[in-house]
């Protein structure tokens, strides 16, 4: 098994869970270690309970994992909730002035810090956090210098005095642990690699900047707001117009307006905001104005659980807006893919003049991952499709220009406003080749049919433009696990664990939901010995979709809809349960109470 080390930091919102998390993350990534961070939190600004898991290791870390090596509870509540998660070899560092320890499992070490003796808590309210970070790093066998440097950066803005005060507190924790606590058995190594650590939201925003997005707008909605925050903070340097709009209806229509005027335009929201946008999706499709909309799924329906993850919006995406129209829907597989998928889907949206939907979820949007900076490519292929931007660049011109010219591909050259000789009206009403409405006085079944067929012919082109999925692992494995989007990492690790335990397992992870490539999927699965569909929702939305498109029915289903992501052991146990014939539907229970 790969070496990995996981830290859990729990406390109330506002107690400063994020800062020690950021410090650990920075130190790990600078040591060339991979990293995955997931924050389980509640929709509350002060109070409640939040639990951050940071998992690191010299090899790829794709999910939060099963095991906690170090627990840092910042209050009694966190101690009471999580101590029971620790197994032999793990440790719990806590403030012994304010927190009573519970009973730890055999072999798990309780490490009390006499905080008021080690630091002046009247001066520094978060001294316990800094002491714990120092103590933890000491037990991990990481030199103090790394921490000193990060603290220097962290508190630089607050002045030298603040920097030295925090370094002194951290040092006290570091030295106290060295003298009093047992170090972890397997120290974390260093590698020569250097990673960028970022959230899926940051990755999608940066992917947009790389794709040449010049207009971004949004209405704040968890868990998509991080895209807006990155865009807003970097807008002026990146040359992107970023607006916060009155509602998501305004958002999608403003995005369409900017796209129509000729720039790449993007917006992001969550399920509720997306519901408001759906009429706009149809407008984008009908006017053939390409836009990209990101949906960061959270647990629904309605306001649902705003801070929890789910893959429950698939059918909303498939059915968004009335009528038939071409669309592309992609679900990024991990944080790095959140970046990569944006230029890819923009090329499809632009070429086929249709809406592109990125179906992300809270797990990726707010989770953080170490990514090789080489994978953040700011010079990707940009294909704007058949776009007329100057008076001489299009075919013919003047009076013969037909915005919705009927073509074999279904793609009609698109002139942007401001170009002489190409004036036309783009309409949400059904229209003729030259843009004239046929919906009112001139309704004409022949023309309507021709225009429907013209638009829908683009579906063939879209299918060819998006690559079909591939199987990771042998076709004749004991089990093939089928997932989509964000479950890639956890299923990958599940397959490794199962294979190590003697059950060969392969993975089919779906990235393009539309086009689905049903034939390719059926071909991959035709000799499968046992198939299970893994997804984060109640009704098996992807399973139902796959069945509707291909008639394929798997042997079993593994689902989770409690708001928390899968952990590898959830799927491992479900696979074993199903292979032994005990069940066809497994719904693992989440052990971490957050």
């Amino acid at each position: 098994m790969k070496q990995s080390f996981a830290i859990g930091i729990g406390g109330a919102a506002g107690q400063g869970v994020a800062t020690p998390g950021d410090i650990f993350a920075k130190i790990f990534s600078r040591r060339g270690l991979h990293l995955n961070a997931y924050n389980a939190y509640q929709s509350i600004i002060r109070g409640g309970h939040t639990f951050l898991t940071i998992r690191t290791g010299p090899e790829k870390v794709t999910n939060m994992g099963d095991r906690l090596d170090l627990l840092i509870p910042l209050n009694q509540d966190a101690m009471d909730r999580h101590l029971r998660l620790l197994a032999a070899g793990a440790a719990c560092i806590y403030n012994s002035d304010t927190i009573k320890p519970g009973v730890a499992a055999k072999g798990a070490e309780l490490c009390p810090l006499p905080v008021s003796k080690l630091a002046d808590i009247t001066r520094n309210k978060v001294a316990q956090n800094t002491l714990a970070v120092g103590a933890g790093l000491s037990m991990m066998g990481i030199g103090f210098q790394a921490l000193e440097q990060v603290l220097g950066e962290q508190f630089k803005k607050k002045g030298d005095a603040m920097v030295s005060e925090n370094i002194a507190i951290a040092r006290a924790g570091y030295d106290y642990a060295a003298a009093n606590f047992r170090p972890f058995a397997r120290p974390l190594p260093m590698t020569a690699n250097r990673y960028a650590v970022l959230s899926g939201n940051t990755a999608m925003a940066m992917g947009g900047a790389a794709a040449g997005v010049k207009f971004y707008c949004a209405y704040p909605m968890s868990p998509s707001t991080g895209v807006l925050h990155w865009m807003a903070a970097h807008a002026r340097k990146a040359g992107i117009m970023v607006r916060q709009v009155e509602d998501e209806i305004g958002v999608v229509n403003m995005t369409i307006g900017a796209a129509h005027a000729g720039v790449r335009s993007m917006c992001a929201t969550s399920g509720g905001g997306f519901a408001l946008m759906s009429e706009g999706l149809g407008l984008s499709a009908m006017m053939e104005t390409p836009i990209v909309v990101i949906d960061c799924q959270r647990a629904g329906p309605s306001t649902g659980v705003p801070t929890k993850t789910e893959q429950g919006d698939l059918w909303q995406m498939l059915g968004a807006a009335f009528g038939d129209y071409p669309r592309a829907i992609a679900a990024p597989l991990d944080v790095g893919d959140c970046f990569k998928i944006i230029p890819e889907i923009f090329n499809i949206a632009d070429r086929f003049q249709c809406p592109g939907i990125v179906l992300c979820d809270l797990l990726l949007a707010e989770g953080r991952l170490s990514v090789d900076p080489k994978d953040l490519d700011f010079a990707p292929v940009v294909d704007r499709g058949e776009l007329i931007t100057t008076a001489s660049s299009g075919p013919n011109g003047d009076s013969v220009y037909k915005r919705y010219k009927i073509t074999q591909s279904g793609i009609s050259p698109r002139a942007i406003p401001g170009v002489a000789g190409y004036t036309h009206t783009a309409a949400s009403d059904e229209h003729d080749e030259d843009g004239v409405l046929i919906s009112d006085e001139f309704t004409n079944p022949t023309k309507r049919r021709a225009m429907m067929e013209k638009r829908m012919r683009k579906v063939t082109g879209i299918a060819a433009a998006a690559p079909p999925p591939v199987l990771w692992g042998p076709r004749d494995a004991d089990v093939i696990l089928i997932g989509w989007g964000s479950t890639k990492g956890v299923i990958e690790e599940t397959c490794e664990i199962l294979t190590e335990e003697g059950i060969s397992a392969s993975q089919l992870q779906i990235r393009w939901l539309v086009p689905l490539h049903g034939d390719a999927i059926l071909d991959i699965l035709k000799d499968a010995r046992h198939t299970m569909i893994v997804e984060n929702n109640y009704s098996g939305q992807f399973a139902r979709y796959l069945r509707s498109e291909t008639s394929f029915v798997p042997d079993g289903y593994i689902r989770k809809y409690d708001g928390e992501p899968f952990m590898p052991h959830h799927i491992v146990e479900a696979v074993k349960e199903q292979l032994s014939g005990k069940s066809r539907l497994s719904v693992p229970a989440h052990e971490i109470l957050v």
Partner: protein
Amino acid sequence: MATALAATNHVAMADLKGKVDPDWCPGCGDFGVLAAVQKALVELQIPNYNVVTISGIGCSSNFPGFINTYGMHTLHGRALAVATGVKLANHDLTVLVTGGDGDGFGIGGNHFVHSMRRNVDLLYIVMDNQIYGLTTGQTSPTSRVGMKTKSMPFGNIEAPVNPISLALAAGATFVARGFSAEQKHLTELIKQGIQHQGFSFLDVFSPCVTYNHDNTYQWFRPRVKKLEDDPAHDPADWMAAMGKALLWDEEIPIGKFFERTDLPTLHGAEPVLNAGPLVHADSQIPADVSRAFVEELM
């Protein structure tokens, strides 16, 4: 290039004639608005390819199809949101938004208010007929109390919105009212609205000859009084404009209620646009900038 063409090519009425003739009912007030917009564009010599006419849904929202400019016939109530996107992507374009009272003050009310406070640089012409026409005659947000329609057969019990006072309150920097039957006056207001830098709101009485038997040409004619004929009216005086906005029934002012030119437009306030319209910007951001974005994360 646009400027060069404009200088050599004279813009004539014929250039602005749409691909199809309007299908409005004979006598509809919207004909007068269309003619006035075309005249204003000719008088200002704005080439048709630099104009985007954007509408929502409704009788008057069919407007973009009847004029030869770039046009967008969007969703019910959403024209202003779309228009804001167009203007921010290419602020060299002249943006006209056309629609009706139901489209703008009913379903589009939210965007109406927010577009005004943002001072988006465009002219918004509402062809206000105090009724829903295309859905065959229901009460609109500007229908008077007591008016009988198919949706309120026993008379409207809801107070109408006052578009002029609403626009003044929401921060529109140019607020005017016209009457479709007063062509010269209306054309002048449209020209001023296009030239005004910022959000120009022009509410136009555009009688519905089919469904509104209360607010007819005959009803409006004796009541409308041009503000321009009142030597005491000062369009820079917001409080006075608000006072005029509240007049109704016996005397209904038309003309320019209010204008201020000291506030930045939305596109003027955003430094991202200092280098020119985004539509002409390089797709790729400079390598040193993107490198710095990545380094922040390390």
